[in-house]
């Protein structure tokens, strides 16, 4: 069974990706990479990753989040994070990535931040 699932929704030019499962070495990290790359290939550069159902991230998953962030920014877009679980929040905090990503707790606020 895949360790990560991703579904996408659109809000007037903003893409919200709902992720659930684990973003870790192997297929979880690979799926996140493919999802972000596919969106960029379609010209979608305003991306919100909803991590509300992501219960585990390892260093490989953190690396993939950073890679996605940089790839989107290099295309002139923005990748933001929504609904961090405590474990993911704590990981981003101790790795100082909380200062790098825009992080939101409310979907509507995250969407409005692109205006």
């Amino acid at each position, binding site marked *: 069974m895949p360790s990560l699932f991703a579904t996408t929704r659109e809000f007037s030019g903003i893409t919200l990706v709902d992720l659930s499962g684990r973003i870790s070495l192997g297929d979880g990290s690979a799926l996140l990479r493919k999802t972000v790359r596919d969106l960029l290939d379609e010209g979608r550069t305003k991306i919100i990753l909803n991590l509300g159902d992501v219960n585990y991230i390892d260093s490989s998953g953190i690396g993939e989040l950073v890679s996605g962030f940089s790839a989107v920014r290099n295309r002139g877009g923005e990748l933001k994070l929504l609904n961090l679980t405590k474990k993911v929040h704590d990981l981003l905090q101790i*790795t100082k990535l909380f200062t790098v990503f825009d992080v939101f707790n409310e979907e509507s606020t995250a969407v409005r931040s692109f205006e």
Partner: protein
Amino acid sequence: MAPETKHLEVTLDTHVESVNLAEEMCVRVAEAAGFNEDECYRIGMAVREGVINAFHYGNQEKPEKKIHLAIELTLERMIIKVMDEGKGFRLTDVPDPLAEENLLSTSGRGIFLMKAFMDDFDVLPGRTGGAELVMAKRLPLLGSPSSNGSGKASNSDATPHQEA
């Protein structure tokens, strides 16, 4: 080895699945030793990062090489050793992932997480020529917040080692 010490050693293939296997094994031992859910998560994550390091950096993902995992339970600590068959490295040569210039690096956080999640961490030259990552966690006091209270720990009368 002291008679109270319990020792488990396994040899793992250089394969992604070994990362999950090592994590699961160590979490089960940690649960049985009385660690609570949060501590088991931290131990599991540290082991995971250690085996990822051995798989990717040490053994360069070469399937003919092996990863050696050892778990020791003493009266005071759970000690985990992960050894690869690579060329070895020095801890002082590992870049700081928290440095401004490394924040957007897509790799290099594994050692930092192992240090953050365990009480002790070191890198030694392994007997196979590669690196041996040695990490340890003090056993919880039964009934303390870091204990799962199951009373399943085989060495439940142990007094945890206190450090300043």
